[in-house]
């Protein structure tokens, strides 16, 4: 399991878009936790439907590959984070990310979701995960997520097929 977790590495957080109701809770909580910078933001995908987009902490993260200084790196816990002391603000991660996640913030550093590192250090869940009213955002290692998603799929099956 450990190896699979390593392989899938970054997939530490999964957003269940079916459960998401687009209520902006994650965005607001993130904004609150990061001094007004929201790392998970909702975008209108059409028809007045808003869905959150945030870093996927990809297994083979292009931003890590493109970063010339190693500032963008994968931590031991699987989250892709920025090392401020190394970041030069070149914007390679911005250009490389297929999802357009990192941004350059003043005074010139890359900034992106760190899965609420200070909270995680204390053994807590990231803010968006903890506060999501529909539990649409799941966080954990690969096995937990897989199990959780399976349980949900089953529940849904029962719920919808029941009379």
């Amino acid at each position, binding site marked *: 399991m450990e190896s699979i977790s390593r392989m899938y590495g970054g997939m530490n957080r999964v957003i269940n878009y079916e459960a998401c109701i687009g209520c902006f809770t994650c965005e607001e909580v993130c904004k609150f936790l990061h001094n007004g910078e929201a790392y998970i933001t909702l975008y209108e995908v059409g028809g007045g439907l808003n869905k959150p987009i945030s870093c996927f902490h990809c297994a083979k993260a292009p931003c890590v590959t493109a970063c010339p200084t190693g500032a963008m790196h994968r931590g031991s816990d699987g989250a892709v984070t920025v090392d401020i*002391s190394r970041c030069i603000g070149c914007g390679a991660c911005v250009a490389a990310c297929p999802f357009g996640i990192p941004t350059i913030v*003043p*005074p010139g550093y890359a900034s992106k979701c760190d899965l609420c590192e200070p909270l995680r250090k204390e053994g807590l869940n990231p803010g968006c995960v903890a506060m999501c009213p529909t539990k649409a955002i799941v966080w954990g290692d690969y096995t937990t997520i897989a199990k959780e998603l399976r349980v949900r799929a089953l529940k849904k099956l029962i719920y919808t097929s029941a009379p």
Partner: protein
Amino acid sequence: MVSDIIETLASVARGSRSKSILTKVGEVCGDKLLKVERVSPSTIKVLIKADCLHEVAEVLSAERDVYFRTMAASDERPAENLFKLYYVFGIDSEGTNIVVEVPTDGEREVPSISDVVKACDWYELEAHDLMGVKFSGRFLKRLVLPDDWPEEIHPLRKDITTEEIKKLYQPQVVKRAVELGVEEIVKIPIGPYHPALHEPEYFELYVRGEKVVDARYVGFMVHRGIEKLAESMKYDQVPFLAERICGICGFVHSVSYTQAVEEALNIEVPEKTQYIRTIILELERIHSHLLWIGVALHLLGYDTGFMHAWRIREKVMVLSELLTGSRKTYGINLVGGVRKDINKEKIEKTKQTLKQVLNEYKEFVDVATSVPQVRRRLSGTGVLPGGEARAYSLVGPTARGSGLSRDVRKDYTYGAYHFVSFSIPTYSEGDNLARTLVRIDEVYESINIIEQLLDTIPSSSEIKVDSWEPQPMKLGLGNVEAPRGEVIHVVITGKYGPYRWRVRAPTYQNLQAVPTMLRGVDLADAPITIASIDPCFSCTDRAIKINIKTGKVEFIPLEVLSRGGVR
């Protein structure tokens, strides 16, 4: 309750001195003392209510080995809804800093402590000017900002940006200079410019006959808004800004800043970095002292001495360029390390040059000190007794010339100074000659220190830490013994750069004692007396204007005085 607090105080203390002092603080404060913590091995933070600040100041200033080091006002309204005042007291005998943290909401007045701690006078005025903190029990006036600055703008507050300030205040001085200033032109056609000290500087001297009766400092001409600027910068950009606080001793500021950040963020710096920093610091001391000796001789009219002092200094400048790539404002310092290594070849070259410098310097000092006018005009003038020096918490050669054996290199050791043995030249006369001799002796010591360091410098090539993590709202202190005295920087860290950065240059401390030195001095010796503290006005953000009062007020620049008195 009170006993509990005292117990906590004792548990965070570093040694017996800090223990007994903190106990006394606990006793006077009682439940007005809110929190005590050790923020770093050498720094203890004490949070007290403003009501008890005056009592604490009394207790601390009564101790023989406690000196007032600096005070920083910080606008922490975004996080705490409060302004914070950090009074830094240092226990010299133990090397411990006691940071007295006083919160205030900007409305209520904080008791002024400038009556018990004389040195705090300017700090309070500056906090009033730039931060809008109010103080009770003292007269408040403008110190840093121009007279026509709008009352309600406090530039260092977080809720106002540079752009907004620029929109609200445009200097109208130009109009004044040309239209209204015509009369003034009669008085000061050349302005406040003093070519020998090379900074705009103002003192107001009140003179009866030949003797200076009183002196007042009017200045802060060089206020460039450094601290506000730094708040919008990255951690690694600020060292360059810090170096440009002063073009003579800039490196001390960048080292002090980096040390403060390293202390706040708990960064272990490689040993070689410490060595390199220390070597450059001492090199800077040599060039600065030579510069000062030259300028002092120039003020005394002995131009030949000035030329020769600078001739010797030029060798040091070339050496600096060899080691750092720059003649001054070396730019090799970053948070967590330095950018340029010192290799074997450079070590050899440095040693050679230093030997030459030493020989020439000896010869030069012998000749220069034998010039009759130099001796005659230095001894017995500008006397500052040790007691006054203590009251003003003077630093550096100025303090050492008055018999206080204070030196940050020994008392609050940093860098690689604990690897070398050196002595601290101290003279007890307190006159201009004593201060001169302290500096002359220090050059020998510095050369000695560099030679010792070069002999033991580690051969590793690790000069910078790999990476470090910024944490917001940590307090760090960094101190360095600059050529002019102790420099102390207070840094409160932010996410990407310093949240608040308070620079305290040595001149800031020493200049407050200059009026005392000037009292009773012959007018002609006023310039050399002012220069004897080695004032660095750009460090202090300030300048001097001379105003001689002979019945009516006149304005006269320093250099006129250097030629003699007014009848």
